[in-house]
């Protein structure tokens, strides 16, 4: 298992670095672009939520992202020490919400917010949220598609 941990300040302008890191690691692992995109999106939504909701956009606080992976799964842990997620929203992570159940033609009902948690729920395979000693952790696991082992392409004999 490999593991990286990055800490960023609670500043929305710093969130891009989460994209940089997650995307770079996924590409290095040889994930396909659809998997990479959905993991990047979840990481950004989760970190943005910590800054907006746990810290109410106050600067000077810290959000940590831990990335752990093996051959068959990738785990993201997003941590803050701000206000914990209310129960009703934690439920979104387990039972889901109907935010994407709209009729596309019914313009007034198309959501402008409240999408992040449901995106995460749909894109990830295992999710949990816990608060221990003042630290909130959102745990997201994605099972990875089988990839070609790198060895197959290795060292073609000279022709």
């Amino acid at each position: 298992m490999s593991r990286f941990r990055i800490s960023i300040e609670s500043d929305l302008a710093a969130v891009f670095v989460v994209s940089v890191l997650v995307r770079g690691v996924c590409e290095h692992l040889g994930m396909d672009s659809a998997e990479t995109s959905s993991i990047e999106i979840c990481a950004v939504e989760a970190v943005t939520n910590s800054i907006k909701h746990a810290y109410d956009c106050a600067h000077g606080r810290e959000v940590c992202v831990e990335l752990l992976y093996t051959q068959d799964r990738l785990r993201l842990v997003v941590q803050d020490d701000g206000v914990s997620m209310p129960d009703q929203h934690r439920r979104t992570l387990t039972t889901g919400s109907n935010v994407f159940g709209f009729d596309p033609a019914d313009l007034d009902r198309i959501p402008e917010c409240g999408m992040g948690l449901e995106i995460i729920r749909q894109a990830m395979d295992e999710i949990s949220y816990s608060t221990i000693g003042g630290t909130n952790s959102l745990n997201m696991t994605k099972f990875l598609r089988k990839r070609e082992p790198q060895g197959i392409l290795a060292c073609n004999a000279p022709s």
Partner: protein
Amino acid sequence: MRFEEIRVGSVLVAKVLDGRIAADVAPRFKSKLAEYMVDGNRSIVIDLGSVSFIDSSGLGALVSSLKSMGKDGDLVISSAQGTVATMFKLTRMDKVFRMYDNCDAAVAALS
């Protein structure tokens, strides 16, 4: 945020030049789109060809503008690709917005 704006007949093509539309710039994105409408534009193509990432608040800004436009005009999307296209699909917004593969097709559809 940086935009490149081109008028083709009655259509305004607004190409987003920033690589990301995320929570840090979403409010500015939203007010820029509102400005286009205040200026009287009723046929707008948002070209996302240079955007490699959009988050849910960026999508929210687009939805808000689509609602403001209402039945008075058209706000369509062109050139969404990669993670941006994935994001529209994950959120079913690809069913809400008229999406075009490229800018020319979008302009043709609105002309």
